[in-house]
């Protein structure tokens, strides 16, 4: 068991080192992270109507139910309280301060192999929208790779990218952008 954990930590460190790019830091230097994710996220809803010409109201038939992150953390330990990973500008590199958070998720998912987690990638508003969708997915995949390397089954990991479409902060400056470059970790309700 001890050997296994060491291997895991090594792998995580190795992957982190591998995924680094040559992005410059745009002023995000605090090691603690602003916890805006719970405020900024609501996975519920999905009412869609259409009223051009003949109206055919649309009822989403296969609406997934998402777990409320707050609920999960009450049942689990307070160590899960930070469920958002933040990124540098135009980068999907996982920074070292977020590795412990991901490791806690890895432990929980390994102990609960039927639990599925949704990795929700996001980008800040700069640049084109569809390219930002791709960037958000890269971020979600970066987190997924570390989790998989840590022994989480591929089937436990799902990802979706919202690009810049669901900002956690509505500002138009770096203070907002750094909160929007993120991956939200959300347990799917079984």
């Amino acid at each position, binding site marked *: 068991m001890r050997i296994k954990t060491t291997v895991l930590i090594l792998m995580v460190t190795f992957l982190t080192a591998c995924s680094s790019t040559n992005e410059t830091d745009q002023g995000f230097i605090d090691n603690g992270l602003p916890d805006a994710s719970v405020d900024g996220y609501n996975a519920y809803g999905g*009412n869609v109507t*259409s009223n*051009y010409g003949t109206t055919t109201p649309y009822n989403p038939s296969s609406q997934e139910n998402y777990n409320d992150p707050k609920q999960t953390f009450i049942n689990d330990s307070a160590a899960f309280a930070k469920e958002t990973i933040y990124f540098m500008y135009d980068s999907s590199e996982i920074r070292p301060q977020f590795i412990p958070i991901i490791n806690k998720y890895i432990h929980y998912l390994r102990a609960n192999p039927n639990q599925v987690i949704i990795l929700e990638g996001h980008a800040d508003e700069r*640049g*084109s*929208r*569809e390219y930002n969708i791709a960037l958000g997915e*890269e971020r979600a995949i970066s987190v997924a790779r570390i989790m998989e390397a840590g022994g989480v089954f591929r089937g436990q990991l799902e990802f979706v990218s919202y690009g810049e479409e669901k900002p956690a902060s509505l500002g138009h400056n770096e203070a907002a952008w750094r909160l929007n470059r993120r991956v939200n970790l959300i347990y799917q309700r079984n």
Partner: protein
Amino acid sequence: MKFLKLLAFFCLWVIYSPLIHAELNIDITKSFESKVPIAISPFGSSKTLTENISAIIDNDLNRSGYFKTLAEQDMLSQPTSANQVVMKNWQILGQEYLVVGNTQRARGGYEIFFQLLDVSKNEQIMDYKITADATGLRRAAHQISDLIYEKLTGNKGIFGTKVAFVSSHGHVNNRNYQLQVADVDGHNSQTIVSSKEPIMSPTWSPDGNKIAYVSFENHRAAIFVQILTTGNRIKVTSYPGINGAPAWSPDGRKLALTLSKAGSPDIYILDLSSKQLTQLTDNHWINTEPAWSPDGRTLVFTSNQTGKPQIYKISSNGGKATRLTFKGSYNANASFSPDGSKIVMVHATAANYKIALMNLNTGAIKTLTQGSLDESPGFSNNGAMVLYATRRAGRGILEAVSIDGRIKQPLAFQNPEVREPAWAP
């Protein structure tokens, strides 16, 4: 005698030449730096109709960025036809052009007569009659604006066009997203789809009857095609991962799109009738935002295979992609001009995202806008204007810019946040 004639001619030339010279200068500066004064005299019987035609023309021309219209209360007279015009009344107010008109009931609707007059030259330069039924009065007014604009600027007007766009409002944890279609002056706005989850990337079918878009309404990306007249729609792709950036082929039979089902975003072509999917790019980089050339043979797309997003082109039959852009650290979301000779794209240097035009024959890039978060550019059907999304005073707005970058025309939508404009065919 001959000498005297020559002398007289010379004197006249000396007297007139500075004037001629001055007029040339005025023309040049007025066209591009100050707005051209034009008066739209209220049309006869215009106020009794459901639409105030002269007010619509006035509003169109005023917002065009090229003209400055004269307020009704400042007019000394309000003629409704060219033979009633006393030119002095308009010269004294510094007007360069005057539009007069009248409306008559006719069988099945109305006849609108209008004349465009050059005030300084004291001559009539346009005389038209347009017929419209009661529901077509607003469209007829935009048509008149288009005719006047084209006559005086040499560029086709955009006042009669429609645009699709995405709007959003609400707090971060309770946002509403809408796909809307409206006249370019903001009127006749209709909501096509509304959702609590994001809607993206609207694109018109070439026949103008359908719109393809991306919707996250099931907490997953899916591409839909919706028929505008009936509201009926079909989900065309909902693979795991990205389903994005739909682009209609010029013949309307296929959609180019982005899927990441194979692990990373690649360009695919979906045949809409056979549902056959063909993969066009295949690498581990980001490949997205496909756009067709007008002849349907080539697509341009965004790829970061050199580390930063740049524009590439590829045959619609597949094969090797060729890089097109080398200037700027970020080039993305390109689309072709109607004649296929140019592309517009998001172009960034030093993290300022602007709209730029690239000549495909020379490779020259010209920046058209001055914003820092400009995006989603696309050509008008006549190729004279580029419509894009920008920010002004904290709001997301749509703006049209002429392809020489000199004339900008903000679109007047009341929504607090609009983006992703797509000009109707």
